[in-house]
Each structure stands twice: as C-alpha cells, then as structure tokens.
C-alpha cells in the first residue's frame, strides 16, 4: 500500500516535471535574454561561429578545411536547414530544432542546454541579422506521410529520381557519386567545393533522416548549396513526393517514420 502510494506520488511528480518542461516556451526577448544568450553563445558557440557571429571562430576552419561546410555566418549567410521556402529565413522553431538535434558530422546536439538557454542563444544570434526583424518566415505546410510505401510507390519514386535529375549529383545508386559531383562542379554559397550527400548513409544527413525530414528537405531545398527546392513541382502533388521520399529511403534500406 505504502509502495503504491509512493508510485502515485512519483507519477505525479514526473507528470509535473514533464508539464513544466513542455511549458518552457520561448521567452519574450528583452535585454536579459540577450545578455544570457550572449554568455551562453560565447562559452558554447563562438569556438566555431566566432565571437561576432561571422563564422570565423578559432576552430571553424578545420571542420571542412578547404571544402564545405563552414560554420554559419549569422550576419550574412542564409540558412540551409529550415522548414520555410527557398531563400527564406528559418523559423525560431527551426533554429531550436537544429540546436537540439545538432548536425551530424559538424555540430553537436546541444540538448545539455536547457530549453530556456537554447531560446536565449537563438534570440542572441538573430539579433545580428536585421532581416529577422523585416522578414516573417512562414513554415511550409508539410503533410503527414500517408500509408506505408508499396513496391509500386518505390518504383514510381525511382522514376521521379531519374526525371528530376537527382542522379546527376547523388549518383545512380545514391552514393553521392553523380557525374556533377565527381567532376567537382558542385560549389556552396562561399564557392567552396561541396559533396553531394550520400543517400545510402542516412546517419550523415544534415537535415534529418525521417521520411518527414526528407520530404521537408525536398520542399525547402538547402540554401547555400546546389540542392534546389522542388516545392514548385510538387505543389498539389504531395503523393508523388512521398514516393520519391520512399525511394530515397529504400536506397539505404532504412525506413524511418
């Protein structure tokens, strides 16, 4: 009986904790937010992004060396990983997700910063780019994935992969060895050589590896890279885009919801 009561108390406490984390929503930006954001940024982010956000931190060069990627320049660059239309700034939630998840290979996940600290850092890095004041980024509407892929759907996806020239960069089998990639033609926004993503290795995908992540990447494109947005082609034809997504996932044999 006593143990049972304890269990209830524990559940109550845990529920309370969860609720309080979920409610730790984005604080309104004020001077304190920026001061705290700056403190965290300088201890955590500045090593690569530089103390002034100009992508010139003392450790930043070594990440890509003479190639892409380099750290984001918060004053000038656009953003690669977003839920918004090509060329648009990311939403606050995009930045939050990015800091939480990290970027495989190049940026660690900062789950160790609590939610409030992550929002404070976001407020601070946005303060460098006046475009965040002028533009109001709106996320694209991303539908839920329909039923599980069928063989026909994956087959259709393969046809789209060819039709939309995905193979030109990502290669026939998705190994990132398409003719444009192997010829060294691909360049990023800083004119550094950039590799085409190896679609058979989802663990290295910078924008996430779930079906939803892939759908989003195809819709938004990756600004500052040669990867374009296909939103215009697939507007109103989301079913076809899911087929392409499933085909890409089939290249690694990994289906992730």
């Amino acid at each position, binding site marked *: 009986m006593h143990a049972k009561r304890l269990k209830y108390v524990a559940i109550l406490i845990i529920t309370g904790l969860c609720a309080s984390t979920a409610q730790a929503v984005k604080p309104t930006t004020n001077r304190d937010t920026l001061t705290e954001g700056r403190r965290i940024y300088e201890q955590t982010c500045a090593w690569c992004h530089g103390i002034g956000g100009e992508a010139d931190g003392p450790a930043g060069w070594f990440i890509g060396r003479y190639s892409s990627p380099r750290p984001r320049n918060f004053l000038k660059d656009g953003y690669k990983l977003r839920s918004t239309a*090509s*060329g648009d700034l990311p939403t606050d939630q995009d930045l939050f997700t990015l800091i939480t998840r990290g970027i495989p290979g190049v940026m660690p996940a900062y789950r160790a910063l609590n939610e409030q600290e992550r929002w404070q850092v976001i407020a601070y890095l946005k303060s460098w780019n006046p475009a965040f004041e002028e533009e109001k980024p709106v996320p694209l509407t991303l539908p839920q994935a329909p039923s599980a892929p069928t063989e026909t759907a994956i087959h259709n996806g393969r046809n789209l992969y060819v*039709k939309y*020239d995905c193979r030109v960069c990502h290669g026939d089998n998705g190994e990132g060895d398409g003719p444009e990639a192997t*010829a060294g033609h691909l360049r990023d926004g800083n004119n550094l050589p950039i590799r085409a993503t190896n679609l058979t290795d989802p663990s290295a995908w910078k924008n996430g590896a779930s079906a939803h992540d892939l759908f989003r990447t195809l819709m938004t*494109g990756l600004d500052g890279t040669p990867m374009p947005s296909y939103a215009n082609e697939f*507007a109103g034809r989301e079913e076809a885009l899911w087929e392409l997504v499933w085909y890409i996932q089939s290249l690694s044999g990994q289906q992730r919801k």
Partner: protein
Amino acid sequence: MKAILFLALVLSAVQDLSPLHAEPQTGMLVGRVVYMGPAIPEQVVEVTRDSAFCGTQATLRPMTLHPKTRGLEGAVVSIDGVASPLSNPAVPALVLTNTRCAFTPRLAVGVVGQQVEIRNDDPIMHNTHISMGPRTLVNVAMIPASRPVGKPLKQSGIYTVKCDAHKFMQAHILAFTHPFFSLTDETGAFRIPSLPPGEHQVTIWHDTLGTVQQSVTIAAQGETHVTLEYPNHADARKQ
C-alpha cells in the same frame, strides 16, 4: 466672416511656403557608357551536360561593344543617396526565362520588393539559383513545362543567377531602393530622369568590368549630358 478670411490667408501663406506646392526642380542625366580598352573576346566552353539540347559548346560573351560609339551594352548606371521613396512599388514582375540553355535576359534591373518570375522554356531541367553573396534568394528546380516561380527581391544589391546544372549559364539582377538607375542599350546610352540638381555620385556596374564611380553635377533644369568611360578592364574593380 473675418475669421474665415483670416484662415484663408493663413492657409494660402502656408501653401506658398510648402515645397510640395512648388514644382520641384529636377534634371535628367543622359549619357553613354563607353569602353575604349581592348574588347574582351568571346569564350567558348565545353558543355558537359544535356549536350543533345544545349549543344556541345557554349559561347560566353564577356562584353558587347557598339562598333561605332564604343558604347557598352548591359552596364547599369545608378545614383544612390537621393532621398526619394519609391513612388510605385506595384511594378510588373521581372521575368527571367531559361531558354536554350541561357538566361533571358542576362541582366535585369529592378527595385526591392519587385517580383522575379522564373520560367523554363526548355525541354530539359534547369536549376535556377539566385543568390547575393552567401545568401540564397531562391534555388528552385525548374522542370520542363513547370509553372513559373515567383520570388520578391528582398534587399538591394547585385544578385547572381546561376544554374547549378549548367555551369555556363549566368545572369545578374540588380535591385535598388530608388528609381534612379538605368540599363545601357546596345549603343551604351542611358537616361535617368527626375534627379535633384547638384553633385551626385554615379555608379556604373558591368558584370565583366566591375564597378566604377564618378561624380556628376546635375543642372537645375533640362538634360545633363555625360560620357562615362570605363577604364581598361585590368584596372576596374571586379565586384
């Protein structure tokens, strides 16, 4: 009655003082951009993709000079720093078409807020990538017979237009926050109306020759004629 008369007097006095009432004096800058240096010859590059449609070679023309006037086609003349809000932001879209593996036009000039409309007339896929420095304005896959894609120009400056699929395709869009700009025609001629008189800094930009600046004095009325000469391209600062 007295009061009304007084009010009318005051109002007329105020109207007289108001600069809005007076017809503002403006001049027009008319001229030609010339280039006396040796013409930079055409370049022929290999086409490695979609050669069946695009051909095996593409010709890049770094400059087009008028044989008689030495006028430089496709230079942009602009005057910054004149306080004048854009009178009519509802300008028609700048249409940029992928046609026969090239952008048409190769140079477009517009104002911030103006839509760019990207089209593809070719039976092959293009990838229109417009960016300013490291920031992308838009990067879209253009499937044959796809709908046009619209995107407003977000900031002033020089946008580079590329096709990541066809490296030899390139164009530029210049965006301004004011109406004081002009694109030179095939004889190198341009005209910028409605300029306040006085000394102004004129900026000339050309995609091969880069940027040069020169000051001109606009007369209080009528046309001010000027010939703007590009220095030999080796001296020009490539923007």
